[in-house]
């Protein structure tokens, strides 16, 4: 059945539908939507967005901060392939407990770096012992070393470049390139270069277990967590 429109052009049905309460709600809803939309638009138009490299650095740092144990497979200057484990933990050094990193390689080399001044290494080959501890820790994927630098550079919005899914940045005298998983931004590989050393490493995040800590504690000069 056809309903005749009233004087104002509204059908009885439409008038009922658009009763005063509905008009109030409709206008309020429209205003809220306008504030939401205008708010987003103003922010998008007025504020700069962080560069993709900065965002990628934060994502990579978040991955690195999330794990305390990283397993790595690396070679330096085309030399033999070495497997390693880097653990971030609390260590007893100099009579006090401090945070630090321990890198253990499968050839028996162990490197311990504990804040503020402890840097100890033992075992391994003469070539390994002659290498910069920083290069070894970077190739070992020691998470806090890399994460802290990435966070700092990201907050400064400079010093990080992103090209072909790899993040490059400088850390003291080294140039580090992290290859990232495209979808998640998780670091997969590390390439480290200095004036006279080149190294490549594949890294994998792992969970710290009692067994890992026990093995570490046996081989480390100082340990206690």
């Amino acid at each position: 059945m056809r309903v005749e429109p009233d004087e104002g052009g509204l059908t009885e049905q439409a008038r009922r539908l658009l009763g005063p309460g509905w008009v109030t709600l409709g206008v309020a809803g429209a205003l809220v939507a306008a504030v939401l939309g205008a708010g987003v638009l103003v922010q998008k138009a007025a504020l700069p967005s962080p560069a993709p490299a900065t965002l990628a650095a934060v994502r990579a740092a978040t991955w690195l901060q999330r794990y305390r144990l990283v397993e790595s497979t690396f070679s330096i200057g085309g030399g033999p392939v070495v497997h390693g484990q880097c653990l971030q933990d609390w260590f007893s050094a100099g009579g006090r407990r401090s945070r630090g990193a321990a890198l253990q390689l499968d050839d028996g080399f162990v490197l311990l770096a504990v804040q503020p001044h402890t840097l100890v290494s033992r075992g391994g080959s003469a070539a390994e012992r002659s290498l910069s501890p920083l290069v070894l820790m970077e190739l070992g994927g020691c998470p806090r070393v890399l994460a802290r630098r990435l966070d700092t550079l990201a907050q400064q919005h400079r010093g990080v470049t992103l090209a072909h899914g790899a993040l490059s940045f400088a850390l003291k005298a080294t140039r580090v390139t992290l290859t990232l998983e495209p979808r998640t931004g998780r670091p997969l590989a590390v390439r480290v270069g200095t004036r006279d050393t080149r190294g490549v490493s594949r890294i994998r995040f792992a969970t710290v277990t009692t067994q890992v800590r026990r093995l570490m504690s046996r081989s480390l000069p100082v340990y206690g967590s």
Partner: protein
Amino acid sequence: MTRYAWVATLEQAGSVPLGLRRAEESARRVPVLAWIAGWWLLGRAVIVVTAIVVHHFGPTGWIKHVAHAHALGPLQAWDGRWYRIVAGTGYLLVPGRQSDPAFFPLFPVLLRAGHALGLGYSTAGLVIANLGFLGALVAFHALTRDLFDDSMARRATAYLAVFPFGYTFSMIYPESIVLALIALSALSARRRRWGLAAVCAAAAALARPEGLFVALPLAVLAWQQRDALSPRARGVALGAVLAPAAAIGSFSLYLGNVLGDPLAWSQAQRAWGRAFEPLGVLRAMEGLGRAFAHDAWVTRDVAAVAVYLVLLAAAARAGVTWPWLLSGLAIVVLPLFSGSFDSVGRFGLLAPAAFWGLAALGRDPRANRVILGLSVPLLVAAMATLPLRFP
């Protein structure tokens, strides 16, 4: 028909022509504006002179890097740096670290606008904050006169101009803009200009989360006017009440879009030591002993909470309505639920009811003299110790 006739109501279209009436009103406003500008100038002069003295003679405290940048360096310190970072490079959430999504976007947007006009971010921040405070004083005076009377408005405005924690109004902080917007929003709502009220309330919330609490007085005003408003105007009024929440929602949407985390601002707050929880107040009280031992400056923040609570009680006795009291209470007490007394002195500046309470206490001429006599030296002391503790 003149242009004015279009806006004339039947009441206004009485014996005096509207143009003439407006001219008279403008003439009456000039001395009031000059009086407000005088108080603004006095308060800001005290702050600027103290900042220059601090710049030359110290203490440098924690703000070494900006204190000596130039004469007004101390006014750019603390959070001013973060607002400049947001304006310059946008938001970035660094999990577990203090990062900038903790700072709301309107002030950085204004800094960028100032920058587009050729000002540096720091200069733009100082200009906007200080001119914003002049606007805040004018709007606050008008609102107070609307709610109470002229003498109350004068006292409250003068006290606000030289309030000891008010040095923040001259720093690169959004407080002055937010106070102006809160007052304008309420004033517009009282005059049934709900569209403007909505814009101001939304902008206030987009500048500081405390802007959300203006929704309380707006809600009560909308309810009181409900019979006098058309259904459409009622909708605008309801929209104005919801606008601050929508504005905060727009910030979340923006962060979700840019950083992939709509709650980035809440996450960042956590890294600043602010995690809201139901028993946060107890945690704040419990941690007081430790806080005193670690840093005696917490005394200032605890004293600020006590002072604001006393002022709100005075406001209640003076007849300030409950929505304003409740919004003031929320501004002063809610931060304690994050487990910390930090910065409440600054947050309380956005509770107009506290200044109405102070103005009520100042009715007695002797009390008035004591309040003004204490405020100026305390303002100087607060400004002089700015390098030692964040506001």
